């Protein structure tokens, strides 16, 4: 099963490689990982999406907790939470399709962040399903480039951790 794990860590050099090394060294896989500073600049949060059976996820959580620079590990999968991801898609539609691309972008509440005579770069934010759906719709128009941030996630307020 897929799990989204939120890891509060010391914002120091080398912490990312400790976490990444733990996953590669023990044969766990990382589907996505995103890191950023928190309000407290001494801390960062890593959101890691990984897959494994219950025993593997238990080990991942325990092994993460063992790292000295890891302060807190929360498996968000077990609690109600919000997940978001952002993608930037550069599409190169034919002249007659341009309007359709803009219309779909609007339906998905995306934004065109860059345009050129031949391309639009669209920013879309949402959960995984929304992003997948948008990407599927864009494919026929010709995707030139595509980048995604990896998931970030946060527990809903009032949820006991």
């Amino acid at each position: 099963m897929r799990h989204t794990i939120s890891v509060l860590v010391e914002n120091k050099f080398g912490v990312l490689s400790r976490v990444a090394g733990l996953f590669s060294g023990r044969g766990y896989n990382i589907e996505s990982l995103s890191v950023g500073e928190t309000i407290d600049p001494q801390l960062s949060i890593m959101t890691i999406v990984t897959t494994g059976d219950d025993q593997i996820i238990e080990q991942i959580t325990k092994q993460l907790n063992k790292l000295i620079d890891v302060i807190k590990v929360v498996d968000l999968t077990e609690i109600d939470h919000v997940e978001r991801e952002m993608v930037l898609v550069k599409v190169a539609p034919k002249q007659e399709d341009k309007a359709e691309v803009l219309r779909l972008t609007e339906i998905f509440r995306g934004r065109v962040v860059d345009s050129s005579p031949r391309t639009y770069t669209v920013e879309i934010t949402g959960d995984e399903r929304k992003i997948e759906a948008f990407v599927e719709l864009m494919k026929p128009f010709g995707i030139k480039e595509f980048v995604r941030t990896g998931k970030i996630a946060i527990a809903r307020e009032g949820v006991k951790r």
Partner: protein
Amino acid sequence: MKMLGAQIVIECLKREGVKHIFGYPGGVVLNIFDLLYDDRDIQVILTRHEQGAVHAADGYARSTGKPGVALVTSGPGATNTVTGIATAYMDSIPIVVFSGQVPTMLIGNDAFQEADIVGITRPCTKHNYLVKDVKDLARIIREAFHIATTGRPGPVLIDLPKDVTSDKTQFVWPESVSLRGYNPKYEGNRWMIKQAAHAIQKAKRAVIVAGGGVIHSDATKELKELAEFTQIPVIMTLMGLGAFPGTHKLALGMPGMHGSYYANMAIQNSDLLIAVGMRFDDRVTGRIKDFAPEAKIIHIDIDPSSIRKNVRVDIPIVGDAKRVLKGILNVLKEEKEKNQWDEIRKAWLKQINRWKKEHPLTYEYDENVIKPQFVVEKLYELTKGDAIVATEVGQNQMWAAQFFKLNRPRSWLTSGGLGTMGYGFPAAMGAQVAHPNKTVIDIAGDGSIQMNIQELATCVTYKLPVKVAILNNRYLGMVRQWQELFYRERYSYSHLDTVPDFVKVAEAYGAVGLRAEHPSEVEPVIREALKVKDRPVFMDFIVDWKEKVFPMVPAGAAIHEMIFGEEKRPKKEKKLRAVK
């Protein structure tokens, strides 16, 4: 007071109570070595290889319970420590390794003798540091010792760029350590402790399996009390040897691949398995799905990640072995009187005794050829068991584990997890530094001893009378054993064609060299060796090269599926160059 980084290092070491450093100098650590030159409180033991320095620090730590310290230079000096660090990591041994590093402004430039040792050792240290600012130095050293010695112990490395050791700063000794990401849990959950006690009361066929954690947490007294109070037999893993007296009537020896028949049978037939400070290594469990099939499992460990890693656990207790065992005992003492236990265990202990008689740990004595087990037995007999025993890895290690009955903790130095050949001799040397008046023996093979043989020079220099018993069969014996049993007797690259004359090697270094080629010479050689108090001794025992370690659980088998010596196929030994 303003101090140089190098002075801070030494001041911190003193405040941590360090008396000995195992080290090897080089360019970037000269600032520190210069200060050690006339320091009166800290003695540096100059080894002949950095790997030897780290194993020595490890042996020092295992035999004392205090952290061992090594100091090496950058680049190759640092990379040479990796095997030692990984060895300590797998066996949870508290050591602190200081490595030099090129000056901070050169880091990343592929400078002379530069290696990213923090990156290299990241997966085999409990934690590691690169000190970038002399202001952080005292705090980092304090944290390193704290991390190495608390919770589940382990090695910590501190990488010291040369300029950090020559920069000056105000010295402030941090009175306490606060790490928000590190809070080992010592107290076991009280409800779980109660559950464990109740399970013990209900069990008819209970067995304790004690690991290295019992020794680390100093819980041998509590373990003995629990075992005696409840009349539960005790099995010790390779790392746990010495945690419970080996000669005690409740002691069943070692489990697993080369464990005793009765230990393995007791586990397989138990209805309750109490695992204390052990981590269900694959060499202990054999085929995991058939391990202890009827047993409820209580698992006590300070490291939460050890629990449910390999086996299902019914009653997990995260905590310090000493406190948890005490807790269980208290509950039991409140609820039941002692006399009932004998009654409950009667049938079970009787069954175990039957197993003991069926297949005792034994070997066939030969009056013409020295059997390696005979050497170990004689060492045990002539030291009356009062020795610190180190081993290398392979057959020598298993025979030592089987036939040297240890009665005290911290008297057994062996690389259990990593299985490092070349560990025993430098580890014995480290233990001898800590215990100058004790008999320290390394039980070695002719293969292993050659992996760190250079430390003879260190032992001679510092007058360390380490006794090395080389079970010389001219083979990588354990490899040969597997090849004989599982690879159709194809002895691919396991015969050590050229083995040096160990007596001459010893003498060349200024040590004592002795040899025994006949069983009648074994005792005199050991007696002679034990008399030497001022230099190391090599005892070269020319042993039966055909001898194998039994019982044996073949890889992938369940632990009751053991093979024994007498079951071996009819003798069809291929003609191989005879030994000697």
